[in-house]
């Protein structure tokens, strides 16, 4: 693919809107083209900011308890594994 073709698809690539078979040739091009790679980074940063536009909603308090308890359980299990201090 040429830079021009790739450039037209980088926004879609950054948004995750390309099929795997469409991504392959772009990634091959990006591996050798610093200019397009830099352009992709700009597209990815803009796409990443979109996540900040979501409406805010607070999770249930029970979720906090569940996650903290699970993390603590995993830590205890790991500590009990042979070889762990």
């Amino acid at each position: 693919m040429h830079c021009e073709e790739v450039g037209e698809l980088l926004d879609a690539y950054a948004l995750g809107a390309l099929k795997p078979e469409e991504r392959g040739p772009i990634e091959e091009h990006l591996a050798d083209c610093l200019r397009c790679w830099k352009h992709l980074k700009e597209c990815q940063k803009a796409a990443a900011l979109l996540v900040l536009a979501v409406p805010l909603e607070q999770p249930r308090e029970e979720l906090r308890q569940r996650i903290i308890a699970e993390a603590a359980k995993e830590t205890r299990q790991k500590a009990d594994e042979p070889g762990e201090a």
Partner: protein
Amino acid sequence: MARLSYRDMRAFETLYDRYETLVYSTALRVTGDTHLAEDVTQETFLRLWRSPQLYVPERGRFGTWLLSATRNRAVDYVRSRGRRQKRETTVEAPQKEPAASEMADPALAAQLSDVRRTVKTALQTLPAEQRQTIELAYYGGYTQQEIADLLNQPLGTIKTRIRLGMQKLRKALATEVKEL
């Protein structure tokens, strides 16, 4: 973050309290389902607890990285279940967003509120069809072809909407992009 590497539970709790609303809201926006959003939130935080090295500071700010990771995980969830989020076409505002003072970390909320406002305004100023297409791609996890099928539009039209819409967003968010 360094304290997480030492399995510091207090550090994990602090991190959870800071980001729970943002992570959960992101997961909910993508999945459109409170149970799935909770599962995604749990997996996102536990993954970080198990492997804090997944975050590489050189690649950008922690908050943006965490929320992008949440979005990607949520899209994987929705895809793997063959389900589609219900909030496909618009960014719905809830009845009442929690105010900064109501969030577990008001300082972080206040710090992010300016950026959030700028991003929301930038999205709102796009032509409706460009905004809808970008939202379907990013929050819905749809490919260009799927969006074309969904909206009954030619693939070329969808490609153009994404390209033009994102060009405008990059321009409107140039300052914020530089700071990432």
